[in-house]
């Protein structure tokens, strides 16, 4: 095997690690915002992801049935819609459920798990008990070849682009906007923020909706990779939680670093071992590191 081939292999393996990284990051961003800013464990986060995926699927069905010519262009609006629908559902959930459970994180965990069960059944009953996939437009299929021996999947590039967009968006929101200031203030000292006139309830609602919206985006991105079923959300929930906890909640850089290291580690191990062993080793390593440093990689002082 020539050096060139090894080089291409490394590049492609690196890229598949990167695409796992973007998936994890998209999911973890939403959860980090919610968990980090509000200390709420949302076990239904995966189902919000599934909402996003199903929205894209629904758009795809509508296009197929009513406007086949729109196949090339429906995808981007579908992704945008996924964000808003997931955010809206998140808003509702916050108002009806989460708001009453702020002081009790363990109970939130259980309640949101119940919510996830109900949402899964909702998908099963009202959409389809079997797994479905959206029909992807042409520009998302296949690979493009920067060099003859390197093939880069197009959907991977799309997901990466989406992730960069979302990350930059979240960064701008958190650090450069008025809302970001309000969110960060509420996180650091809720009582003072309230005293200064920030409507902490509204901030919480918005944050939760934002986190769920980003989850919806993750789900929409996910439709380019695999099929969606009622239980697709639970596939990645534990990984997402670990990414968030590992990175140190409430920290954008932490989440990015943690998602990157976990994704690359898992991809690399998968190349040399079986995928089951790779997952086990990655998880074990994370847990051991967490045992040594429970607050995660990067931390900021958080007081609610």
């Amino acid at each position, binding site marked *: 095997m020539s050096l060139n081939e090894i080089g291409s292999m490394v590049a492609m393996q690196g890229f598949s690690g990167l695409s796992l990284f973007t998936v994890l990051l998209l999911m973890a961003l939403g959860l980090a915002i919610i968990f980090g800013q509000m*200390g709420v*464990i949302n076990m239904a986060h995966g189902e919000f992801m599934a909402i996003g995926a199903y929205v894209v699927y629904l758009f795809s069905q509508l296009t197929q049935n009513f406007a086949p010519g729109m196949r090339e262009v429906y995808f981007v609006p579908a992704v945008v819609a996924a964000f808003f629908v997931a955010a809206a559902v998140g808003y509702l959930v916050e108002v009806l*459920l989460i708001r*009453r*459970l702020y002081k*009790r*994180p*363990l*109970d*939130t*965990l*259980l*309640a949101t*798990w*119940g*919510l*996830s*069960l*109900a*949402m*899964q*059944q*909702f998908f*099963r*009953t009202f959409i389809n008990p079997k797994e479905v996939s959206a029909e992807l437009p042409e520009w998302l299929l296949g690979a493009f070849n920067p060099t003859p021996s390197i093939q880069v999947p197009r959907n991977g590039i799309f997901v990466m682009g989406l992730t960069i967009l979302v990350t930059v968006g979240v960064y701008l929101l958190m650090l450069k906007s008025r809302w970001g200031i309000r969110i960060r203030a509420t996180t650091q000292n809720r009582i003072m923020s309230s005293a200064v006139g920030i409507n902490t309830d509204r901030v919480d609602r918005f944050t939760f909706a934002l986190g769920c919206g980003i989850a919806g985006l993750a789900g929409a991105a996910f439709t380019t990779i695999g099929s969606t079923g009622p239980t697709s959300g*639970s596939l990645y929930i*534990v990984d997402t*939680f*670990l990414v968030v*906890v590992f990175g140190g909640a409430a920290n954008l850089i932490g989440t990015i670093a943690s998602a990157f290291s976990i994704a690359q580690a898992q991809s690399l191990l998968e190349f040399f071992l*079986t*995928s*089951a*062993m790779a*997952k*086990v080793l990655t*998880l*074990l390593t*994370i*847990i051991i590191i*967490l*045992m*040594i440093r*429970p607050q995660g990689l990067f931390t900021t002082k958080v007081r609610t």
Partner: protein
Amino acid sequence: MNLLTKKISKNDLIGVIVLAAIILVLFPAVFSIFRLNLIGKYLTYAFVGVSLVLLWGNGGILSLGQGVFFGLGGYCMAMFLKLEASDPISTKIQTTPGIPDFMDWNQITRLPLFWMPFKSLTFTILAIILVPAFFSFIIGVAMFKRRVGGVYFAIITQAVALILSVLIVGQQGLTGGINGITDLKTMHGWDIRSDSAKYILYYVNGALLIGCVILTRWVLSTKFGMLLLALREKEDRVRFSGYDVANFKTLAFCLSAVMCAIGGAMFTLQVGFMSPSFVGITPSIEMVIYTAVGGRMSVIGAVFGTLLVNFAKTFFSEQYPDLWLFLMGGTFIGVVMLFPDGLAGLYERYGKPFVARVASKKKSEPTVAVAAALESGGKHG
């Protein structure tokens, strides 16, 4: 010293007797062997429920990975039973007779080293108790000494559950993979699949469960139990009072792990197989709901909670399968938001005064005794 020697009150004893009567007398009389076997299965889940009362209700430590210990106990027993069922005569069509069938399918030609000790029943029973205790000890020490608690601990127990289930599924040759270990026939020559065996196993299971209930009640009534309650409420104060918090938490964790493992072993005996679908995250969280429904502070409540949720599950998944998960999800949410003390709490608040009123109206000896019995059944559980 008074705290250490505080005995179980008469009311508690009556509650346990009522429970024992229902499990050991009422159910076998009413249900067919098929349904009774199902109830036996639910009662093995009740072991986990009881363990969570100790760990979560009283200690405030939410573990979402109790399935791990349930599975460990179950797999130990399954390995013993499988080895017995894989004697060279019945496996003679295999490439390598004398080893379990799934090892044969996976081109394994020799029994792996860690399977060999399970040929002995004594070792198996010891393993059922010691292996989960060991694992929980390690996890407990690593977590609690680092003061990892609350939500973080819950997530890490989830990760542990995931690791174990992925490991089991991935190592198909060693553990039977996603199929689990099936086709278990006899235990020391005694056929566990016959109806009479099912009856005997049911009674053994019931007796063991009652034993665990009594044990947990006793533990909770000692100083250790008081400390657990204190830990749940104000951990720092307990620490400042000079107690080593991590040790107590680890002890509680180990106790609960062993209880789950016993439940797992009884499960394997009654159902006849063990699979990784009882080890992962979903079953672990489901077992938490049994405790939550029954009343997380009430040991007897946990048993009833388990029975209730599982009855509902079987009934609904047979009649209205589409409705079932909505109900389950709703139960989670309802239990957390509306009645956090579960059935036991409801009984405390509404059932007991009603019974007391009825009893005081009648004012005759036997009825008062009955009222006291019902009272104690829900009080401390």
